[in-house]
């Protein structure tokens, strides 16, 4: 409460003649953190831990119930004059011990105060549960006896031989995985497919149970009792958890670290086994489960569990390795102190760090973990809300309260009431307001360059598909694929013997009819007329046949490059009329056809700056400038190419029921723009790319608000 460094205290008389003792069931463990001695008082039943420094330990060790507080303080002063705490510090220490229920004392306790304390601690638990509602823990069973009974079976695994076995198994698994890296990667695409989600979740639960058992056995193996196991609702997704906090009381650091890492050790072993199963099974349920298990056990372990930025295993391990208990809290404190010192000019407090380097590291950790947490859980929330709208909305509300509102309110209260800021309040409030105002102004007022991207593909402005105009056998090619052809240049020659025969028959018929005409001139004038009409029709047929024959030579309709994927395959084949004979693409003018989703179209229409850039896939280093944009003002549903849709590997959502994979789920607008090929880049028909539209500069805030609205509109039809 008051200055802890003062030698004398006005409240000393309250405790000077008391003989408090430490409760006999309290265990004191010596620990060394970063070369500094510390002591942990642990309570075997309530699983509470209380850390004290060596100076405080000098006092605590003398709390034997015989000495009065005055006597033991004098004793401390005599024995350790350099480090003995002042009266105020002794009072603080005893007060804390009493509040942590670690003291035994004569005389009746203040029952009312005890009750009040119990009530307050119950309320505190409830409050922390509420604050942690996104990670609520519900203890279900006490696994201790089960663990003790099964330890003889499992225990030997936590040994030198077990470690060797683990190294072998994991090594083998990694070896297999590297060998089949391609297949592994391919299957990853289907991981979040709807039909795999149930399996994925089931594998995850099974795996996490093993993970938690790993902690539990490891802790039990080293003698820590494990009394709670249950369900943690992580973002309302049930996950198993186990309470292995007994490990904090271990004296050796490696044991604490090992208990922390036991879950991941188990998971990696399981992942190795899963790789083996996966590689030896054909596609099916077992195969899929093996894949899921392997994925969860390796990737999630590395991203979540090992990552010290989130408060999972990795955090506790790091905190232990660094010897900074309560790393996150200290890092936050350090950050706050640094902010207050540099920005608000608060003097006097230096924070928990001992060196400037450590101070920066702690502050960076606090910043990093904060940002990381918001990003990861923000992403998870978005993912969840995508699937379950109302749940997502509820979660988002909770997250907004926990991560946005609470810190803001706290900041406000801190600025308004913190006694540390007493004489800097004006400056602190001013600086904060200035910073917040500055950020807001920049976001809301300063226009920032603004683009958006849309997928599309390259298309010649002028191209035609060649077809046979008539049935026939392809005799030979008159041009080579890829060759530049002129307008009217023959490309292929067909032979159609039937055509020849029909021509010959027609000619014979014509001769016959002409003969009969001559005969009729002499013998029967009245027959002349019908015969002449017959002759005309035969002539017409002949002309038609002539034309058909001409079609046997396929001509290029215009100048361009003729291309056909497999010309040799169809040589000598009979081609019915309308069979494709490749395309002639005029390579002098290309254009880009882009597909702009509806929601972006508005911005596109609103801002006809007409400037855009195209980057082609596979050549994204090169930027193709575009000048005249042509926006087709009606929305469409059919994609220009299946390559743009999901099924073809593109980014536009398409209906799965469309066999061609071209029916877009949402209507889009098409944008066309002429392309000019720069030096050294050959434009090819159908090459896909991305177009980036430059929009007029716009403040970020307005953009974010719009995206949020669009998100809500799209995802939730609000």
């Amino acid at each position: 409460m008051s200055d802890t460094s003062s030698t004398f205290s006005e409240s000393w008389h309250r405790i000077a003649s008391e003989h408090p003792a430490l409760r006999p069931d309290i265990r004191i463990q010596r620990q060394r953190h970063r070369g500094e001695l510390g002591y942990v008082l642990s309570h075997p039943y309530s699983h509470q831990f209380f850390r004290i420094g060596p100076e405080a330990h000098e006092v605590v060790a003398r709390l034997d119930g015989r000495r009065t507080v005055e006597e033991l303080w004098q004793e401390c002063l005599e024995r350790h004059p350099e480090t003995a705490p002042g009266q105020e510090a002794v009072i603080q220490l005893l007060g804390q011990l009493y509040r942590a229920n670690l003291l035994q004392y004569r005389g009746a306790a203040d029952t009312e105060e005890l009750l009040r304390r119990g009530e307050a601690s119950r309320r505190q638990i409830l409050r922390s549960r509420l604050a942690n509602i996104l990670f609520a823990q519900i203890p279900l069973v006490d696994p201790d006896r089960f663990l003790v009974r099964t330890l003889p079976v499992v225990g030997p695994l936590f040994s030198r031989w077990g470690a060797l076995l683990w190294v072998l198994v994991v090594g083998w698994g990694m070896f297999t995985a590297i060998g089949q890296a391609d297949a592994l990667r391919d299957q990853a695409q289907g991981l979040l497919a709807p039909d795999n989600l149930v399996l994925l979740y089931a594998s995850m639960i099974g795996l996490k149970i093993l993970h938690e058992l790993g902690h539990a056995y490891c802790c039990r193996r080293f003698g820590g009792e494990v009394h709670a196991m249950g369900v943690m609702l992580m973002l309302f997704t049930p996950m198993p958890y186990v309470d292995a906090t007994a490990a904090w009381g271990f004296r050796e650091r490696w044991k604490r670290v090992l208990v922390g890492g036991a879950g991941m050790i188990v998971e990696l072993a399981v992942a190795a086994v899963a790789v083996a199963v996966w590689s030896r099974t054909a596609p099916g349920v077992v195969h899929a489960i093996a894949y899921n298990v392997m994925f969860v056990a390796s990737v999630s372990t590395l991203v979540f569990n090992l990552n010290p930025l989130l408060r999972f295993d990795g955090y506790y391990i790091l905190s232990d390795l660094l010897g900074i208990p309560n790393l996150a809290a200290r890092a936050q404190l350090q950050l706050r102190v640094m902010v207050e010192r540099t920005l608000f000019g608060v003097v006097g407090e230096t924070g928990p760090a001992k060196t400037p380097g450590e101070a920066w590291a702690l502050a960076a950790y606090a910043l990093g973990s904060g940002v990381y947490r918001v990003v990861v859980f923000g992403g998870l929330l978005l993912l969840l809300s995508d699937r379950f709208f109302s749940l997502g909305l509820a979660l988002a509300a909770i997250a907004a309260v926990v991560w946005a509102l609470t810190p803001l309110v706290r900041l406000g209260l801190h600025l308004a009431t913190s006694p540390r800021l007493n004489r800097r309040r004006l400056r602190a409030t001013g600086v904060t307001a200035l910073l917040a105002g500055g950020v807001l102004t920049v976001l809301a007022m300063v226009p920032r360059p603004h683009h958006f991207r849309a997928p599309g593909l390259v298309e010649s402005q002028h191209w035609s598909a060649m077809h046979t105009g008539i049935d026939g056998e392809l005799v030979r090619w008159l041009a080579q694929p890829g060759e530049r052809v002129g307008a009217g240049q023959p490309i292929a020659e067909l032979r159609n013997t039937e055509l020849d025969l029909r021509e010959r028959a027609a000619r014979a018929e014509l001769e016959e009819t002409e003969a009969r005409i001559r005969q009729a001139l002499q013998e029967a004038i009245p027959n002349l007329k019908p015969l002449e009409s017959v002759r005309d029709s035969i002539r017409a047929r002949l002309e038609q046949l002539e034309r058909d024959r001409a079609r046997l030579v396929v001509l290029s309709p215009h100048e361009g490059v003729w291309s056909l994927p497999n010309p040799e395959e169809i040589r000598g084949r009979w081609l019915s009329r309308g069979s494709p004979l490749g395309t002639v693409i005029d390579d002098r003018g290309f254009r880009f056809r882009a597909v702009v989703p509806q929601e972006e179209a508005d911005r596109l229409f609103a801002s006809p700056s007409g400037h855009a850039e195209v980057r082609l896939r596979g050549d994204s280093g090169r930027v193709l400038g575009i000048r005249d944009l042509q926006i087709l003002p009606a929305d469409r549903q059919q994609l220009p190419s299946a390559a743009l849709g999901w099924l073809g590997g593109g980014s536009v959502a398409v209906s799965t029921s469309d066999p061609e994979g071209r029916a877009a789920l949402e209507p889009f607008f098409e944008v066309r723009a002429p392309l000019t090929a720069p030096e050294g880049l050959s434009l090819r028909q159908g090459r896909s790319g991305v177009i980036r539209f430059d929009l007029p500069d716009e403040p970020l805030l307005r953009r974010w608000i719009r995206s949020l609205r669009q998100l809500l509109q799209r995802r939730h039809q609000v």
Partner: protein
Amino acid sequence: MNTPTDLQRQRFRRPLRPLPRGLDAWADAWIGRHRRRRKIGMEFRVAAESVDRFHLRFRTLEDAQLRERISELREAVRRGGHPGRSALTEALAAIRESARRRLGLHPVLEQLQGALALNAGCLIEMATGEGKTLTAALTAIVWAWSGRPCHVVTVNDYLVERDARDLAPLYRDCGLEVAWVTGPMSSEERRRAYGADITYVTSKEVAADFLRDTLRDSRGQARGPAVLRGLHAALVDEADSVLIDEAVTPLILSAPKAHPGLTATVLHARDLASELVRDVHYGVDTARRELRLTDAGEEAVARMGGGLSGLWRSPERRGEWIRQALVAREFYQPGRQYVVLDRQIVIVDEATGRPMPQRSWRQGLHQAIEAKEGLELTPPTETLARISFQRFFRLYGRLAGMSGTCRETAAELWHVYRLPVLPIPTHRPSQRRQGADRVFPRSKDRWESVIDEIRSVHATGRPILVGTRSVAASEEVAARLEEAGLPFQLLNAVHHREEARVIARAGERDRITIATNMAGRGTDIRLGPDVALLGGLHVIATERHGSGRVDRQLFGRSARQGDPGSSVAWASLEDELLRQNLPHPLLEALSGALSHRLPLADFAAVWAIRLAQWRSEREGRRRREAVVHADQWIEESLAFTEGDGND
């Protein structure tokens, strides 16, 4: 004969509930606001009018008949425990009549209203001169009739004795015994005084007696029986002073206790501290009375290890001792904060200039100052018991109070003591003319202007009361008046009795009285003959106080009970209030604006003073809050020990 019930009654104290925190405190504040809503005052007014209707019935009674009636009513009240409404109404009417006959004072409607509000546990705000003392007596009688001892708490021994003596005839007439407790009394005398039905006492005395009783309890009966008879009821006069201003420091009972090594340590610290140079080894913030070691200073302290006792060898301790030696050197000047009498340090109250023997500064500091003066070091004192006034007054079963000015602190009074503040209107409308503040950039100009004002008002014959914030300031005014050849009375460092006499005569024609703000509290300034025609008493505040309440008290000394009067305040930008509470650049700017007579400069200066007062009051509130919090922490964390009277 002591029955268990008697013993229980003699130890009575109300069990303490912790103060509400967080949202509870917020809700509680709203309840408080409800409890002091305006309508409440009207209810008491109506009740007071019904008391007034008994007026004639008692007027016609013989003295003996009245006494008989009073004793009947007393029985009714005693039997009923808490007097019912009708019994109360009649009882008050009877007491009123008795007051008229015995004291020659006839309580007016407003006083009756106040008495009823007090009885209901309110903190009433009555303007100076409206008769708070008599109002309290009315309620004290009713409370004491219940058979439980009633304490009337006020600020100083003089008022304790005066009020008890003055009101004794009334109390006797009502069948009650009155007594008072003052500083020099022995514990036997005290026990007898507390044995009376009504006891007048200062807050410090009664809290100290309470602590001594607790100590006796915890150490067996060896030092004699308890002095108090339980904390049943207290009426606090000058409540703002007792409950707010004095509550900044808890009351501490201490006894000298030899501490081996301390003397050597303090002397050593003094010697070493003399090597440290101001602004090199340490920085001094005069305005805030803060001292901080610079890095160079810390280094120097770190080098001064070696030798001596355990109190010295720890670097942390060492720093503390040296800092204390420096504080003693920089902030404590003989003649201002203390005087040396008979080779002993005597603390001087800075506000009144009154020496306060038997008081000492906190452990170590007192010795450091003695070391500085080269005196023999007294043994350090050991705290035997400690209680904050916030805590002490909450132990009373019934608590009520009155004050001239407490509106400003209504929220705090409710939060801590659960006292709703209720303003009682003045009997006659106030005729005070309050002049606008006159602000000067320099202190010197201010004094000249004050002297000019005194001279011109004095020429009209009106009496003048010059209020100063500190003894030094009052001496400054005195010197200047002497120079100007004006006659004056200077009040400081004299005893309450003379103080009251001087103050009481301050209303006579042609009088000029200089007094610190605190001097002569509780004494009425009656106007001399014809003075009302001249315009009444003129009050000059030469400097704004840290709290607006104290200013209002000073102004309230003029124009009492519907008399004419006027008051005006001076200030300079060099005043401590402004220098401590406003940023330096703002003062510079204001000073420039004032000396160039820019438009609105005066207006801005008045607002600056208000801001400074607000900040200074907030600082005070914070310090009191800290006392309460520290108290609460100690109680909760050290609940395993025997408390200072909470069990």
